[in-house]
């Protein structure tokens, strides 16, 4: 067995593996393409390898922790535990493919040094946030994520981009402030900020000051819900679609939205604990909010003609599956929620990759212009179709697995509306995804494409197509091989088995 001490730095190394290239790139000249790409790829690969190492260690029953004390009683701590690894693995692997995609996507555009620098910092913040061992560290990375993402959203420098960036900052920074106040209040009240599986708070203490803890809970939830895009705090997300496609992909699948959802999971699991949250009656509030968001997002997605906006509202809807699953006091729903965190990421990133290819190669941005794109871009649209079907929840795609577990949980819960909501949502999913697939494959070409003709070898630049295909296959694999120990489901089941949840 590997001695733990030697490996205690592993979480820190995972964070640094993208932080160092990020800072380094910042000081490169604009024309140092080779070095920049090299740094990016090296960082991405290093992070992936480190995460795999850590994954193996955790699977063997180890856990990793690195901490320094910042304030008396408050530490900056990075922890590699099961739940953290679920998210870290997702972000590390998706970052790898997104990097390849982004290099191809942005070729020839200005300010790439700045872009890739903040791109790396963004992932740094996400991995740090995933491995945060306590709320203090979580807050640090949560805020850092905001700053790292802002330059990416305004990257194009257009008035819409700047407006979107401003809206994003207004939402997220206010939320960040609320989260900080909540965290401080929690520390002042409970004296601890550690994440503990099953809940860090003493139920008796909570019973002693119920109102106070209720306020704290909602402060924290409010801070997290904005990034998680829970209705009515989702306003920034569709607007942020002006960002370049790799950024949207990152925002929706890997970083920001996921960070919010993951935060809700941490809040319910590791701070309050599900049982306590249920007792306080707050879990049901979360569940109801999530249920409403699921329906609302789907309905709004129905009548968006802009492809990326439709995908954005889909994210709003899908992300709430996670919150809903976690908020229900049942193992099966937990498993469904957590697995969906991963599955949704993989599928949604595929969709955004494909949307990026469409707009970049053909100039197609709207669903109504998509007639016949499947024949021009068969690989891309194949990937898109797999992901879309997965989103709908057709077996054997990844989405089916998570919805299955959620459904079981819903049936078992004493909330009668959960199953109808899931059913309705699936129908709505189908209603807004299937027409796209149909239009792409079966309709005739109905608009002028500005075909850039890039990538004579494949249907488009290989760096754009390959990532999309890879993640689509990944999504398919997650569904087909769900029984495997190494699938997201397998990992989640392992966590349950170990009592981490």
């Amino acid at each position: 067995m590997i001695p733990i001490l030697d490996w205690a730095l592993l979480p820190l190394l995972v964070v640094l593996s993208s932080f160092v290239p990020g800072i380094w790139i910042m000081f490169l000249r604009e024309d140092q393409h080779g070095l920049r790409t090299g740094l990016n790829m090296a960082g991405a690969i290093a992070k992936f390898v480190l995460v795999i190492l850590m994954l193996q260690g955790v699977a063997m029953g180890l856990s990793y922790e690195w901490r320094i004390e910042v304030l008396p009683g408050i530490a900056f701590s990075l922890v590699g535990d099961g739940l953290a690894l679920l998210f870290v693995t997702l972000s590390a692997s998706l970052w790898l493919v997104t990097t390849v995609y982004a290099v191809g996507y942005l070729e020839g555009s200005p300010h790439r040094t700045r872009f890739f620098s903040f791109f790396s910092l963004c992932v740094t913040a996400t991995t740090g946030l995933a491995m945060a061992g306590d709320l203090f560290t979580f807050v640090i990375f949560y805020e850092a994520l905001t700053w790292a993402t802002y330059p990416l959203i305004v990257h194009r420098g257009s008035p819409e981009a700047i407006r979107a960036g401003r809206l994003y900052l207004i939402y997220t920074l206010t939320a960040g402030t609320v989260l900080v106040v909540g965290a401080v209040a929690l520390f002042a009240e409970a004296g601890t900020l550690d994440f503990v599986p099953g809940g860090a708070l003493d139920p008796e203490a909570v019973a002693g000051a119920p109102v106070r803890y209720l306020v704290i809970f909602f402060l924290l939830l409010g801070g997290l819900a904005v990034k998680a895009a829970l209705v009515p705090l989702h306003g920034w997300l569709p607007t942020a679609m002006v960002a370049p496609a790799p950024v949207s992909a990152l925002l929706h699948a890997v970083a920001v939205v996921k960070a919010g959802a993951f935060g809700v999971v941490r809040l319910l699991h590791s701070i309050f604990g599900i049982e306590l949250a249920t007792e306080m009656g707050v879990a049901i509030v979360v569940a109801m909010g999530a249920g409403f968001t699921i329906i609302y997002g789907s309905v709004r997605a129905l009548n968006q003609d802009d492809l990326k906006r439709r995908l954005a509202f889909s994210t709003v809807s899908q992300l709430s599956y996670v919150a809903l699953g976690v908020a229900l006091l049942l193992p099966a729903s937990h498993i469904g929620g957590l697995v969906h965190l991963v599955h949704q990421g993989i599928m949604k990133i595929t969709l955004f990759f494909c949307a990026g290819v469409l707009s970049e190669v053909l100039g197609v941005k709207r669903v109504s212009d998509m007639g016949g794109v499947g024949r021009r871009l068969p690989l891309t649209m194949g990937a898109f179709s797999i992901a879309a079907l997965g989103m709908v929840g057709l077996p054997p795609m990844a989405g089916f697995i998570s919805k299955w577990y959620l459904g079981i949980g819903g049936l078992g819960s004493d909330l009668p509306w959960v199953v109808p909501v899931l059913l309705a949502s699936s129908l709505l999913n189908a209603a807004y995804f299937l027409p796209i697939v149909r239009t792409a494959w079966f309709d005739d070409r109905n608009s002028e494409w500005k075909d850039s003709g890039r990538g004579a070898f494949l249907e488009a630049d290989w760096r754009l197509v390959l990532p999309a295909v890879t993640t689509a296959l990944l999504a398919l694999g997650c569904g087909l091989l769900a029984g495997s120990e190494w699938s997201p489901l397998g990992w989640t089941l392992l966590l349950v088995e170990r009592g981490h949840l």
Partner: protein
Amino acid sequence: MSTDLIYLVTGAGVSMLGFRGFVTRAHLFWKILGINLMGSGIFLILIAAPPRLPGGEADPVPQAMVLTGIVVALSATALALGVALRVAVRTGRPYLEEEAGDPVDHPTAASEIRREME
């Protein structure tokens, strides 16, 4: 009423007269005069207020302090007069002008920025 008391009250009066002059007059020279008088009044308090030695001598420590204070006031006056004269050169008038547009130096800044952002 002893000598000390008379000068104590005088000190309070002179210091507040000086302070008032500083506040009410716009001309820089009178402001500087006001500060000087304020200092003189405080010096009087400093000597007249503390208890005397049994022999009736004044406490030597405040005397030393006032001696220091006189030199400090002199230095401050010299520098202040120098700057005041330069104000007269630069602005044409030896007054403490209200800065144009203070406290908001560009009232249009906010609106201009807002317009640009939209």
